[in-house]
């Protein structure tokens, strides 16, 4: 794999993470538990989609062909999507959405901190811009982890249930493959293994305060970064891509 190929895949992974997570959060639009949180979630969704646009535009530049951000978002099949499995997991309930968001937000924050030192100027600039938004995402999801974890018996139970299920999707965030190795060597990419300890420390301290328990299992789901997804991604893409694929080139 050349450095160029690795970089393209790397950028698409970052783009797909936030694009799919943004879509998931957007599904809450009109369905939030209260109006204020409905708006909070769609706000975060828009932040994510804005970040995805930056990455897709950069991907097009790397490929050097006349592709738009829409082509990447709307004209790729599940096997060509490289997002982490955790971001495509369904919303289920508010607790589930919060736990998914919190796990990813803390990772995302630590990741962007490192990426802002990347030798690739464009990636560093995107990271620097995104980190302000993600700082707020961390605060938002972190506050809800506290409130619901240390809330009522029902909210605690729902949070713990969500943690137990989503936990197996967290390991993939710290797995390195050939793409990561090549770009780490070039000082473009981030050392994911190095992030794990810090992530674990933040999450476990926060969970302790929220009276929640981290599962002990270390087994992890994986494959999303290589294009092997859970059944959910197909449904997301069907939803997302229906219009541009049925009416190609339509605009409004």
């Amino acid at each position: 794999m050349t450095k160029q190929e690795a970089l393209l895949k790397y950028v698409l992974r970052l783009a797909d993470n936030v694009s799919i997570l943004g879509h998931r959060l957007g599904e809450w639009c009109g369905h939030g538990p209260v109006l204020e949180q409905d708006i909070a979630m769609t706000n975060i969704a828009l932040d994510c989609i804005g970040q995805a646009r930056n990455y897709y535009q950069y991907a097009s530049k790397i490929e050097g062909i006349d592709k738009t951000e829409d082509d990447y978002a709307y004209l790729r099949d599940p096997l060509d999507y490289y997002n982490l499995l955790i971001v495509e997991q369904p919303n289920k309930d508010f607790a589930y959405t919060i736990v998914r968001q919190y796990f990813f937000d803390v990772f995302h924050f630590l990741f962007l901190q490192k990426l802002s030192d990347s030798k690739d100027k464009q990636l560093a600039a995107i990271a620097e811009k995104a980190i302000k938004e993600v700082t707020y995402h961390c605060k938002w999801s972190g506050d809800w982890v506290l409130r619901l974890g240390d809330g009522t018996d029902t909210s605690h139970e729902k949070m713990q249930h969500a943690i137990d299920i989503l936990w197996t999707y967290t390991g993939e965030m710290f797995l390195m493959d050939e793409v990561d190795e090549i770009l780490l060597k070039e000082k473009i990419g981030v050392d994911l293994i190095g992030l794990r300890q810090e992530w674990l420390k933040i999450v476990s301290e926060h969970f302790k305060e929220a009276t929640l328990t981290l599962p002990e299992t270390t087994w992890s789901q994986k494959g999303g970064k290589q294009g092997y997804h859970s059944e959910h991604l197909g449904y997301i893409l069907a939803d997302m891509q229906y219009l541009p694929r049925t009416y190609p080139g339509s605009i409004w």
Partner: protein
Amino acid sequence: MKNWPLWEVFIRSKQGLNHIHAGSLHAADAEMAIENARDVYTRRNEGISIWVVESKYIHASNPEDQGAFFDPANNKVYRHPTFYELPEQLKHM
């Protein structure tokens, strides 16, 4: 969540201006009220500072007192600084 109290939100749009009432929202506590206000009222770059106060702490004038309270100000032009020449630099008089 139905028992969340109502909060009044005040936003300052620029350094040097006053906080102005923007609206109200529901939240469980002050911190959540500020975050909600950030999401509901400052998405389009409207503010640099937020105040929230629980609506129950707002005391309002009585609509029945409107006449006694406000009408006497109507016919006293000398209460307005319209008889002075204002320097042009003064913007907010």
